[in-house]
């Protein structure tokens, strides 16, 4: 888990002694207005506000416009822009190097739901310790506008014709494969993106955030499900969400009245406060999670918010009874059995 310190004040440096600038990355090379850019900005803010030490974070991505994002935040963190669809396996291995590091992965809908479906699913069932952001635009941006697996049936794109295949619902997939933290958001709703990112950072295990992130160049027609305007018109937040760090007294934001809120405690004592909107929603119940997703598919709602959370499932790192020192700092004395053992071994070889 990333080392977190109490929430940053309004001051110029946060409790990690860093300015917001220290959380930035290189200038974006994505299109102006691309949803991915606003998500990268929220990663910067969330990390800053959470007082995360960038050196305690490792960034991962696959290939795509979305997968370029890790270059646009947390310049002081190690990063790996890997292969198309293969971020999960690479991250899984890398995180064993030092399990005190927090992983943050950024992927695309093509990267995770098309070519990467297998690795995506298996990372869910392993409960790998990482935040897994999918910048979902229903299209392949970097290869110039083909259907991804999340494109809606009937979507029409230049050169591609009409999409014929049922879309993949990333949140439903994550839940079906037993992910322990599943959320959906919308790049056009930066506040929610930020709070969800904070909660995801605090989660131990896999935290999937499926963020609808419009591709302004290839799939932003008003009637496209992954466009800004469709998102704005159809967003149906489940709740208003605020993340409260562990050591803070729970002071509800002003607009959160007692009684209208539900609080979910995280493994480290931090908590997520959910303000009820239209109806009550319980994100700790897998059954209602599946239910709300099925309903939103049927009714074309863009349901956003924390869809499912189980804060107490053992994370991948818990399943291996590892020594306290980071594995990658062990030296020969702990890695090579002593010379005295070799005779014993030979004697076992009939």
């Amino acid at each position, binding site marked *: 888990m990333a080392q977190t310190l109490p929430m940053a004040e309004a001051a110029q440096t946060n409790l990690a002694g860093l300015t917001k600038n220290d959380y930035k990355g290189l200038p974006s090379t994505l299109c102006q207005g691309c949803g991915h850019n606003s998500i990268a900005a929220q990663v910067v803010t969330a990390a800053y506000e959470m007082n995360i030490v960038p050196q305690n974070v490792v960034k991962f991505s696959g290939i795509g416009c979305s997968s370029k994002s890790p270059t646009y935040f947390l310049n002081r963190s190690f990063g790996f822009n890997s292969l198309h669809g293969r971020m999960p396996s690479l991250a899984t291995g890398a995180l064993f190097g*030092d399990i*005190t590091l927090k992983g943050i992965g950024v992927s695309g809908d093509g990267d995770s739901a098309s070519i990467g479906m297998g690795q995506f699913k298996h990372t869910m069932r392993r409960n790998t310790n990482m935040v897994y952001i999918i910048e979902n635009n229903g299209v392949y941006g970097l290869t110039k506008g083909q259907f991804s697996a999340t494109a809606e049936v009937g979507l029409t794109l230049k050169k591609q014709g009409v999409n014929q295949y049922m879309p993949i619902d990333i949140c439903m997939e994550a839940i079906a494969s037993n992910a322990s933290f599943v959320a959906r958001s919308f790049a056009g709703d930066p506040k929610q993106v930020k709070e969800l990112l904070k909660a995801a950072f605090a989660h131990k295990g896999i935290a999937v955030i499926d963020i609808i992130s419009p591709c302004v160049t290839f799939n932003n027609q008003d009637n496209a499900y992954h466009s800004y305007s469709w998102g704005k018109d159809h967003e149906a937040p489940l709740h208003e969400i605020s993340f409260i760090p562990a050591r803070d007294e729970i002071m509800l934001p002003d607009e959160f009245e007692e009684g209208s809120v539900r609080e979910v405690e995280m493994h480290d004592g931090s908590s997520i406060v959910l303000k009820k909107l239209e109806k009550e929603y319980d994100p700790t119940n897998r059954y209602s999670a599946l239910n709300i997703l099925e309903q939103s598919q049927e009714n074309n709602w863009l349901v956003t918010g924390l869809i499912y959370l189980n804060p107490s499932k053992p994370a991948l790192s818990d399943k291996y009874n590892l020594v306290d020192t980071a594995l990658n700092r062990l030296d020969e004395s702990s890695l090579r059995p002593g010379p005295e053992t070799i005779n014993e071994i030979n004697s076992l070889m009939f």
Partner: protein
Amino acid sequence: MGQLIKNDFSIIVGTANGSGSQTSNSTILRALFKMGIPVSGKNLFPSNIQGLPTWYIIRASKDGFIARREEREIVVAMNKKSFEKDFASVTTGGVFYYDDSFGTPPAREDITIYPMPVKQIIREASDVPSNLRDMISNMVYVGILSQMHGIEMDKIETALSFAFKGKRKAIDLNLDVAKAAAAWAAANLQKVDPYVFEPMDKTHGLIMSDGNLAGALGSIYGGVQFVGWYPITPATSLAEELNEYLPKLRQSPDGKATYAVVQAEDELAAIGMCIGAGWSGLRSMTSTSGPGLSLMTEFVGLAYYAEIPVVIWDVTRIGPSTGLPTRTSQGDLNFAVNMGHGDTDNIVLIPGSINECFEFGWRSFDIAERIQTPVIVLSDLDFGMNQWMTEPFLYPDSPMDRGKILWEDDLDKLKETWGRYLDVDGDGIPYRTVPGNRHPAAAYFTRGTGHDPFAKYSEEPDVWEENLNRIKSKFITAKKYLPEPIIEKNGSSKEAIITLGSTVYAVRETVALRKQNEGKEFDLMRIRAIPFSDSVRDFIAAHEKVYIVEMNRDGQLYEELLVNMPDLAGKLVSVAYSDGMPPSASRIISEMQKKESK
């Protein structure tokens, strides 16, 4: 009964897969080994779990030749399905044992035939629980063979005791049947064949192991920290042995693990995890075979280009495609060296004995971390899954080489700006940091796309070209870290053989036989690594004609030599074939002679 034939013949046992004959067969093997007789055992099993014909070949060789032979002096038929075929296969002068419930074989004047009343002996042996009868039946031929050919019963007991980890009840159950069968044979069979075992002193100080176990143990002594794997015959047991021995050898005093083994969902993920782990500074490895190696192609290209150490064991089975999962080959060499689109090179290590499997287990990590590149260890099914006698495993003779890795302290001391892909030392190998290094200058961004010496993205033509040429230069540097070829001089001959891996056993025998039968002499070189040492060139240059003997269709080692030493092309003759069987000297001789007569 004429001249006795001592410690120099083969026993082939035909059984059904999954019928539990493995214990019996390795009991014979181990008993002979304990009698001091050089011996080898090869399991020819089908790609299924239960019920299909399976053979086990035991060769005893007083001269220490332990490759497969084509001759089948003693054949034991325990499987009705292969009964006729087994009968027909007995070499003239040989012996045929069979379970008498299969009926009577046709007449054959040129061999000795002994029926075995398996059911009767089992029935009469007291105490065999009825549910174990089928399995225990196999001890019948152990007992009979021991009586008829002189396998010592106390050595059989030692072998059984090893197999059952000292569990007395199981040992006795089996031993009693063997003894009963031996007694039956003593009473009922009259020995008329010439084949006998006699104690020798030729296995002293040696051990018995298979290559997968040796590789696993070697890797543990190499400090393996991460294993990502996916089951595939014949590589599975390498990972399973890691699971078995890591907890024994590599737990910290408080019982915690200094390693993690993850069974991945497939080979794409297995290699991905390993590369991730290698990137973050762990000694990481996977084991696979052809189809899995093919799936790893894209990722290995990434590791090559992003310069990430990782060790891949390819326990080769015969391909292309799914091929024969339970048959051996050396057919993956070309692919291993060049795998991936674009210009690539990979370091390949090829062990040529079981204790070298152990050695390359640890050494491969040193090389991978030193050169910062994937290292592919090419073992094969014959090594990987068969029991071989071998020199004992040697404790590593050099400390771990973690290569050019920088931690916080190192960065503090650094005068110049550190660049991940900067060739500071002129050997092509840059310095690296790994995640978890908290120094403010440590972090960098890794990618499989074009990058400059400071790991910044670049599409500049000269940056690309210089970087890729530098990477190529690492493989020149690599030579001094790689195991040298082994030369076995056999006189001042002008002709020589180059071979690799497990094939060397049949080639040694080839050399001996051709000297004995034809008076021809061949020097022998066994290649242990690619890129080739300069001594390979010297060796070829020093001979007039060099035969490259290998187990694949296309002569892949020969092709690698051609590409590297085109000026010596005229001296090289390819002797290559591959049919899934471990090579035999007689086939190699006939293939060589075909080429010579051309």
